[in-house]
């Protein structure tokens, strides 16, 4: 609930103070006139009125200037929320500056705490994966020794654990990223890195990845998370395409849509929703976890975005990822 406006309190206070001063001035002039009747005369009135108006104008502008720093602070906070700034900067009056400093310190503390928690979650996840890798090979050995049922059980449980780890790690990342202020990331930079990477990972298949992405398009997300979303979409496209994958982007008021098209076999309409659900795979024989698209959806939702699957004009699957945009020109990032 908002209390009475700071501005009205200032003005009322100033008016009351001025009224008091006027009363004192009036009493002094009455006393002076009663002692020296020669002062009685009208020729001073014009000058007096002018001085009075000038003083009032200067006073009002001082009040305005003093209050403008509060508006300035509000603008800075809005920029912070939009992801254009990471800290509140600028000079503020002596009464406001300590507040700004405290707020900045709080932001930094929060960022560090979230970062540490995330690093711990990552360490836990990755610390579990090497022992799982060892177990997985042991299961293979058990299989080779003829204990097929035991090997199959161990194998299934390892796969379940791996999915749990991947899912919860991605979720922790996403939750932490949503809590981090000041995130913004250019779409082209992310798409270029991923394109280089996928060309290398699929070397020998002669894949073409075309990028039609505007250099100005940026989204309000951490680079790691945009890489994860776009990486999963591109990887999926590269797995299924026969020769060509196209990434394009389009911006409208407040959001950027990134579209990934491929010329592969596509996905039946009935399967499109299913693959976006947690843990469902469109084709059990496809390499990879099958969690990819579900993770993309999860991350996108944390950022207030969305993902949709469709039929591509190129024949295969079209994935449309929509994320809140971060204006490029306004920030220094």
């Amino acid at each position, binding site marked *: 609930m908002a209390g009475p406006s700071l501005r009205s309190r200032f003005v009322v206070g100033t008016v009351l103070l001025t009224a008091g001063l006027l009363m004192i001035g009036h009493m002094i002039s009455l006393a002076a006139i009663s002692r020296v009747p020669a002062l009685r005369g009208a020729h001073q009135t014009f000058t007096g009125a002018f001085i009075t108006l000038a003083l009032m104008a200067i006073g009002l502008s001082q009040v305005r200037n003093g209050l403008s720093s509060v508006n300035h602070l509000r603008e800075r906070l809005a920029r912070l929320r939009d992801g254009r700034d990471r800290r509140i900067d600028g000079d503020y009056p002596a009464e406001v500056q300590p507040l700004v400093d405290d707020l900045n310190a709080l932001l930094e503390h929060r960022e560090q705490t979230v970062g540490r928690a995330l690093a711990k979650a990552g360490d836990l996840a990755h610390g579990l994966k090497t022992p799982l*890798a060892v177990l997985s*090979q042991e299961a293979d050995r058990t299989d080779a020794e003829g204990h097929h049922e035991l090997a199959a059980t161990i194998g299934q449980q390892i796969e379940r654990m791996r999915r749990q780890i991947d899912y919860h790690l991605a979720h922790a990342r996403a939750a932490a990223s949503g809590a981090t202020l000041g995130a913004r990331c250019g779409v082209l930079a992310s798409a270029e*890195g991923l394109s*280089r990477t996928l060309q290398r990972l699929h070397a020998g298949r002669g894949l073409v990845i075309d990028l039609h992405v505007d250099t100005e398009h940026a989204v309000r997300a951490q680079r*790691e998370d945009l890489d994860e979303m776009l*990486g999963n979409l591109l990887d999926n496209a590269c797995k299924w395409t026969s020769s060509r994958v196209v990434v394009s982007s389009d911006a409208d008021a407040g959001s950027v849509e990134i579209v990934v098209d491929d010329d592969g076999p596509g996905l039946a309409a009935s399967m499109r929703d299913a693959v976006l659900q947690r843990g469902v795979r469109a084709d059990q024989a496809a390499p990879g976890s099958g969690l990819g698209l579900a993770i993309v959806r999860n991350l996108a939702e944390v950022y207030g975005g969305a993902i949709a699957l469709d039929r591509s004009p190129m024949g295969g699957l079209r994935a449309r990822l929509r994320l809140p945009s971060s204006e490029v020109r306004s920030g220094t990032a």
Partner: protein
Amino acid sequence: MRILVVENEARLAQQLATALGDAGYAVDCAADGERADFFGQTEEYDAVVLDLGLPKTDGLTVLRRSREAGIPVPVLVLTARGSWHEKVHGIDEGADDYVSKPFRMEELLARLRALIRRASGQVTPALRCGAVALDPRGARVTVNGVAVRLTSHEFRVLSYLMHHRGRVVSQSELTEHIYARSADRDSNTVEVFIARLRRKIGSSFIETIRGLGYRIADADA
């Protein structure tokens, strides 16, 4: 064909060494970044399996240093940290492929074979020169369709020469690529392996280029 395995988890390193050995490769293991750095710069490998979270020097630093030193060996990164952001970083540092833990050994072996094949400019998975066919997938060799039994050293010699067919391979280069670091090396034994191979697959298949080394003629050339 010789592989360097860089993995600090001893049990996993052993499992990898066993599986790679069974697949016909000579294998060296390094348990930390410093040893990996040293092995990578002083020995010759046909591929490297590299874990990233290593003691002393981390895997990406090892990779960057070896690329800076101009070593072109194919590197397969085997890591628990397989996010796309990390993959982009690893590929930009010079990695050739990524496998995330936990993994299927067959998949790792298949990716390694593909890397080695691409690095030597081969297109098809199985190598064929005239009557002789070598399939790295099962370490199998056939002559006119008839399977030939080779020892692991003979297989490595033949595999290396066939991967680099059309090129003269010196005796010392062959020695580098068929023995693990710990093995006793004697370049004279290469002559023995070549002689045995000639008995098993035909005497004219491997040419001796006097003073330079050996060559398998490129059938397509």
